[in-house]
């Protein structure tokens, strides 16, 4: 496969270096533009295995409010963000809910749970 150049902005600090990653198949040939080693590490992770925490909310049944906010307990692969949101869209939970309650186990087979980030008492 041909060489590929990927451009990124490092989020490690406010400097926001513009990074250029040279990649061939799964192999990273070089990282340029970083001012410090953190930029290099960030670029390698972003190009090979980008992950994100996803936050959203799900519907609550029998609660004092209609929705409860939630998040993935740790980061999940970036390309699964929309799949996770899709699962949450169809989800309901019954009040009461406490912070840290698991709302969905092993979401999209990531091995990561969806946990509540807010308390909702019963109506």
């Amino acid at each position, binding site marked *: 496969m041909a060489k590929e150049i990927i451009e990124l*902005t490092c*989020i490690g600090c406010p400097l926001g270096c513009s990074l250029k990653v040279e990649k061939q198949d799964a192999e990273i040939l070089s990282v340029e533009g970083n001012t410090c080693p953190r930029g290099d590490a960030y670029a390698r992770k972003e190009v090979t295995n980008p992950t*994100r925490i996803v936050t959203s*909310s799900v*519907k609550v049944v029998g609660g004092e409010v209609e929705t409860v*906010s939630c*998040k993935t307990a740790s980061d999940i692969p970036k390309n699964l963000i929309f799949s996770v949101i899709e699962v949450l869209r169809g989800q309901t939970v019954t009040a009461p809910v406490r*912070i840290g309650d698991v709302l969905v186990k092993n979401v999209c087979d990531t091995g990561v749970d969806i946990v509540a980030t807010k308390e909702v008492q019963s109506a």
Partner: protein
Amino acid sequence: MKQYDLVIIGGGPAGMAAAIAAYDEGVSDILIIERDKELGGILNQCIHNGFGLHTFKEELTGPEYAARFAQQVYERGIAFKLNTMVMDISEQKVVTAMNAHDGMFEVQAKAVVLAMGCRERSRGALNIPGYRPAGIYSAGTAQRLVNMEGFMPGKEVVILGSGDIGLIMARRMTLEGAKVKVVAELMPYSGGLKRNIVQCLNDFDIPLKLSHTVVDIEGKERVEAVTIAQVGADRKPIPGTEERYTCDTLLLSCGLLPENELSRTAGVELSPVTSGPVVNESLETSVEGIFACGNVLHVHDLVDYVSQEAAVAGRHAAEYIKADAMEKSSGKTIQIEGEGGVRYTVPGFIRPDCMDENLTVRFRVGNVYQNCSIVTYFDDREIARRKRPVMAPGEMEQIILQKKQLQNDVSRVKIVIEPNS
């Protein structure tokens, strides 16, 4: 009239941290007054993560951060009234408030902490031409609708302003199925954090157009299209650069303003630069015994700094109450002045005898600076110089002043941005 040692106006992160610090300093007769139905302030609608890295060494969502402080308020048994709106504060520290249960009531405070937060700049202040159809929201209002009421304001969205709330909402609305077509920013740089530009815009291929503004809004009943154009160095639209986007929603994310109507009625002097009170080293306003912290004092982008600052205000309010009158300072004050790009400083002046060993002075710069230093002068003597590879108006800066350095005959502290030679 009921009396309290300390009345705190607003139960957001600032109000809670001030209450906790005052309590821990030995003042327990405290009342927090909050107009919302829960403590936590604006954090309750900020369901994304990224809060509390400095304070808790982990990334929390807004509601989780708020809950940790609310827990500390409960544990101390600090009194609070929810669903209660403060209407007036007098110079004598009589606080007038109202709720459905008690009606209108007054309380007398020995000291007051202002912690009312901020509000968003409204469309009127932005001066966009065109009709005023439905479908125009501030980014914060949209955040509240989507995150707390589960209501999506629209399907096709244009965002004006690249402040963090606008960026966060670009991602949130995209995830909820909307198409965010463009984010237009008047300035040549974004007001938001790099991390938010990457994770909220780049992740979803949402274009960010710097040096662009909205020049036309179409639609009489509902927004139908928005036209943006590039602006020149004078920030005026350049003819011929117009681009039209069909959309049903326009979000405005154009900055925050401290909420100081109450401070004004209390006779508190406000700074024309921050729109917040002018305060001394103890975060006390021009009215003795009235303190201020958080977004009502100056707009913060990181809640960790709000909590730190509020703890300082709460502690000094407690000291004020315990001393029963201001511990007599010699009356000497030292002005802190910002120059060469430093727009303002909080605090604005220092009474050296009342100062803590270390005093954090927070400020913002007026432009993007690269390869510069923050230089501190006592009169014309250079005291400290710290290199900063990059500074931007969107990120608050700070320096620490040490009391032991200030002892001699300093009459003026100056903070200046200077290019590295």
